[in-house]
């Protein structure tokens, strides 16, 4: 006999509302059905009705955690269709902000992962250190989370010289702490017993379902947009793409923590080589009919914007493919043969960002109707 255990739309393991219906036999997961759409805000459509400049701020609000990479990719796409070259200093400032974002996003994820396996002390430690990164982000860009720095044609705010030593100081401490976490995560017996061999995604599967980002790299796919399709200042900087082979949750932890260390290195190089000069050029308000695709490596993986212009000051179409959207199918493969105890950590392992994924549609009529569906489901659970 199989039992259907609903996880979500409201569940402590999920930080955002999504619905998973696990078919379980005893403790083993037999199948999973995924439904999205609980936080649709209709951003893609809304972008068609707003100007290019206005859309920078809209794209920033697609995702709170990775807002810089969203504005950055959007701006890259618009700059490409308008044929603008942005100043060198702007490229480096963007790189620094992008990497600071990656560091705090990965630490956030690591904390959540520790929480999912019931290791709350480690969770608190990760978040304590993430706080320092948010502090320097606030100093550099004015906002702990939303930086509002990128704009079409460059950046709006310059990095002040006096912030750099403080930033490097914090990063030095952070590097030491991260190396310690790496050591703990690869040696603590309780962590190993919860993460090793859990939620395995093979390289074959990762390629097949088009996995992106750390999820794919943990499975051994050697692909990083920063290195292979460089944008911002990544082409000028040296860094290593962190790869693991096993594809389990442990590999994901190691890849993400390894990337934190690489990101620290990138910020150091970028701060060191920061060129002087202007930080933005003026973009045109109307853009001739054209199309462009911009990609970047968000903390969660490849982020893609496809922008089509039509000669007015508003885009004809903006298509956003967020990393979690690309990784949804990996869950189906990972959950095969998992136990109920492993559901939360495997769910969390791809670092899902649901609000990102659910950006597409129009939320208008009958906002409350989706609740009716879930109540109906609840009634069904009761009968069981």
């Amino acid at each position, binding site marked *: 006999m199989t039992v259907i255990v609903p996880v979500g739309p409201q569940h402590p393991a999920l930080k955002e509302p999504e619905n998973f219906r696990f078919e379980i036999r005893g403790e083993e997961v037999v199948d999973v059905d995924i*439904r*999205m*759409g609980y936080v*649709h805000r*209709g951003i*893609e*459509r*809304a972008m068609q*009705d707003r100007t290019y400049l206005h859309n920078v701020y809209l794209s920033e609000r697609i995702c709170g955690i990775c807002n810089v990479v969203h504005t950055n990719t959007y701006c890259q796409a618009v700059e*490409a269709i308008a044929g603008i070259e942005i100043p060198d200093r702007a490229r480096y400032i963007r790189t620094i902000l992008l990497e600071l974002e990656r560091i705090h996003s990965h630490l956030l994820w690591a904390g959540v992962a520790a929480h999912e396996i019931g290791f709350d002390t480690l969770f608190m430690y990760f978040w304590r250190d993430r706080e320092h990164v948010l502090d320097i982000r606030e100093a550099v860009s004015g906002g702990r989370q939303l930086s509002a720095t990128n704009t079409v044609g460059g950046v709006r705010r310059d990095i002040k010289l006096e912030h750099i030593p403080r930033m490097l100081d914090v990063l030095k401490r952070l590097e030491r702490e991260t190396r310690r976490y790496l050591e703990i995560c690869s040696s603590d017996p309780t962590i190993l017993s919860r993460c090793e061999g859990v939620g395995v995604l093979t390289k074959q599967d990762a*390629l*097949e*379902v*088009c*996995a992106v980002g750390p999820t794919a790299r943990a499975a051994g796919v050697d*692909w990083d947009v920063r290195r*292979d*399709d460089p944008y911002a200042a990544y082409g000028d900087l040296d860094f290593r793409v962190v790869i693991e082979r096993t594809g389990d949750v442990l590999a994901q932890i190691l890849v993400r923590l390894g990337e934190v260390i690489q990101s620290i290195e990138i910020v150091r190089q970028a701060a060191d080589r920061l060129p002087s000069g202007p930080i933005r050029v003026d973009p045109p308000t109307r853009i001739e009919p054209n*199309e*462009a*695709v911009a*990609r970047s490596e968000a903390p969660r993986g*490849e982020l*893609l914007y*496809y922008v*089509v212009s039509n000669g007015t000051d508003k885009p*004809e*179409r903006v*298509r956003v*493919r967020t990393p979690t*959207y*690309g990784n*949804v*199918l990996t869950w189906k493969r990972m959950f095969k043969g998992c136990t109920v105890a492993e559901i939360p950590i495997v769910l969390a392992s791809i670092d899902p960002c649901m609000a990102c994924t*659910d950006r*597409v*549609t*129009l939320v*208008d*009529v*009958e906002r409350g*109707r*989706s609740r*009716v*569906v879930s109540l109906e489901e609840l009634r069904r659970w009761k009968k069981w």
Partner: protein
Amino acid sequence: MKASEVIQLLEGLIEEVKTVGNRRVFATASKERFREVLQRLREKEVRHVSTISGVDRGSHISVVYHFDCRPCLLNLRVDLPKDNPEIRTITDLFPGAEIYERDLMEMLGVKVSEHPDPRRFFLPDDWPEGVYPLRKEVKQP
């Protein structure tokens, strides 16, 4: 594959080829030749579909397949008539495209034939039939 290699590979199958830098190729293919393009890409170990975008162009619907040829990104456009936008699924060759095609179906009303799981993905179950939010004729509330 680099941009030039992609263009060489698909010689004769694609039209309106445009290269931007050496990592972006924009091209169109007809609905009939489109399967052959997929097969050729698949033979060359291209396995990553970055996404599928649908654009309502007023008179027709463009479906843009973004294939990641590592490092080149091939953006292959297929134009479909608006009165009968129908295209065959690519999930048999690229299983990762499953959700993008479900998205395409519910948002733009493109009929993807032979799709393994044509249910809705984002829209609620009680969303009215025949209303496709990203079509031009649907006005924002």
